[in-house]
């Protein structure tokens, strides 16, 4: 049985070259957006803008500038987090989303019927519909490559080792060492998703960040959609019970009025 595999993304060494995006698109034969006609975002040098059904990797550019000479660029290659407790897998009604032997989360495109429940369930906004297949799609952590002993296309292509692939245990050790190194240099660095006791049982794609998670478009405390199930169901049941009682009381009152009213014959 293979051990859990994943990514450790050290955002401090990402140079925003987008080689990972290109490698992902090439390997997975993902179609171009808008028929290949380039569309500029207009407010950023990042024109991919988001993860979706045809962009399984996205290098996010965060431009923090107070003035022309006072600021910094943060760059982060974003991808599916392959959550240990995955919201998408939890809600998928067709069984299309599975956990693999590498502890990664994969959508089987031939089973998915495009209901899109997984899109709303993912706390990270990772999944979307691929317009060519009509099904929900996202990073597979190159399941086909892993099966034959190759590393995922994105980490293979990364020229700075910002994206590191390996066993989760080993990656966590490496990540903690890197945080200690950065902190010793006075850099405010934190790991996001590396704690197996943290949110969603830990993320199999975790990050080293130098600012708050929200700055990178990441939720502070991602949670499973099922957290709302019991409470929502209880309130619904209460509402149904109240309406049911109102209907029955109304019918009883009508009957009583008819029996007590003129020509009703009185109570029996």
């Amino acid at each position, binding site marked *: 049985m293979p051990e859990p595999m994943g990514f450790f993304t050290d955002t401090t060494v990402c140079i925003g070259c987008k080689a990972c995006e290109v490698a992902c698109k090439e390997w997975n034969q993902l179609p171009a957006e808008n028929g290949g006609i380039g569309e500029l975002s207009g407010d950023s040098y990042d024109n991919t803008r988001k993860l979706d059904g045809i962009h399984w990797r996205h290098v996010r550019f965060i431009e923090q500038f107070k003035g022309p000479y006072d600021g910094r660029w943060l760059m982060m290659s974003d991808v599916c987090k392959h959550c240990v407790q995955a919201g998408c897998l939890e809600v998928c*009604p067709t069984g299309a989303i599975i956990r693999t032997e590498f502890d990664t989360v994969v959508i089987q495109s031939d089973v998915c019927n*495009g209901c899109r429940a997984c899109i709303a369930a993912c706390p990270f906004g990772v999944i979307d519909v691929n317009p060519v297949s009509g099904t929900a799609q996202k990073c597979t952590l190159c399941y086909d490559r892993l099966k034959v002993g190759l590393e995922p296309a994105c980490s293979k292509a990364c020229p700075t080792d910002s994206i590191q692939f390996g066993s989760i245990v080993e990656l966590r050790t490496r990540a903690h060492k890197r945080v200690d190194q950065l902190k010793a240099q006075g850099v405010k660095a934190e790991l996001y998703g590396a704690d197996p006791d943290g949110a969603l049982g830990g993320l199999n794609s975790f990050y080293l960040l130098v600012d708050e998670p929200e700055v990178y478009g990441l939720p502070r405390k991602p949670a499973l959609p099922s957290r709302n199930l019991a409470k929502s169901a209880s309130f619904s049941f209460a509402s149904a019970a109240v309406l049911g009682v109102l*209907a029955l009381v109304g*019918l009883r009152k009508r009957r009583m009025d008819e029996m007590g009213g003129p020509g009703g014959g009185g109570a029996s």
Partner: protein
Amino acid sequence: MSDTFFSGAPHWTWFIIPYFFVGGLAGGACFLAAALDWFGRPEDRPVVRTGYDIAAVGAILSGLLLTIDLGRPLRFWHMLFQSENFPALMFKGWSPISFGAWAILLFGLLSVLSALGARTEEGRLQMPALRAVGGLVKGGVAKLVGGAGGLLGLFIAGYTGILLSVTNRPIWADSPWLGALFIASGVSTGAAALILLSPGRGATERSLGWLSSFDTKALVVELLVLIAFIVSLGSVNRVWVSIWGLLLLVGVVWFGILAPLRMHAQRRPLATAARLVLVGGFLLRLTTILASEAIDRYRVAAGL
């Protein structure tokens, strides 16, 4: 900022909004028909028959809308059976969309049986095969089928709200009240549909009076739950500073709840109040879905 603002919109729009409305209305009508079937008087039969008809048509329409909305409509059966392991069943008790698919199927079956039984009772069925099936649904069987359909109707009206809550989307996952709200709205729109359609089947003034009285109570419950829903959203309420908030306030609260309540109180024409309730019920689904769908996660995340 709520963590729900970082999730992606599922594009549940122009087939899902009508489905939520039709499903709620059909479920509510079926519940009221079953209540009158069990505890009403013989003079309520036209309302009962109309209610089962609305439920059957609504259930079939719901199934069609849900199927058309899929990215791969021909794979709709993957919701019910394991596609790689047919005929093993596909069911997840913790996933509202999974148990909802089964509930719709069962609700459709029961409501169609009830409608066939009611039509046979009226002598309106021409096809021998349908008449034979309808003939089986009478007496105690009809009551059992109708009662089960009625209870399932309440479930159908409410599970769509639970489905929205069991996500990670803004508004939907930020409040546990949507299921309760949709049940109240489903029952009030079901009553409104019966007020409009059952006179054509011979409903008496007394039956309509009871429907009007019940609709008033359902609208009050809906208003109270709507207030609880808004209060529970807390800081997320800023999303209502939009066209959807205006529609919620004017279309749902004013025209869909307060105006019909006033009309019921003043005993003004029931049909006008019923039409407003239907419009309000539709706008409730539209605003709650589109207000969340419209949120661009990246724009919000970037503080733009």
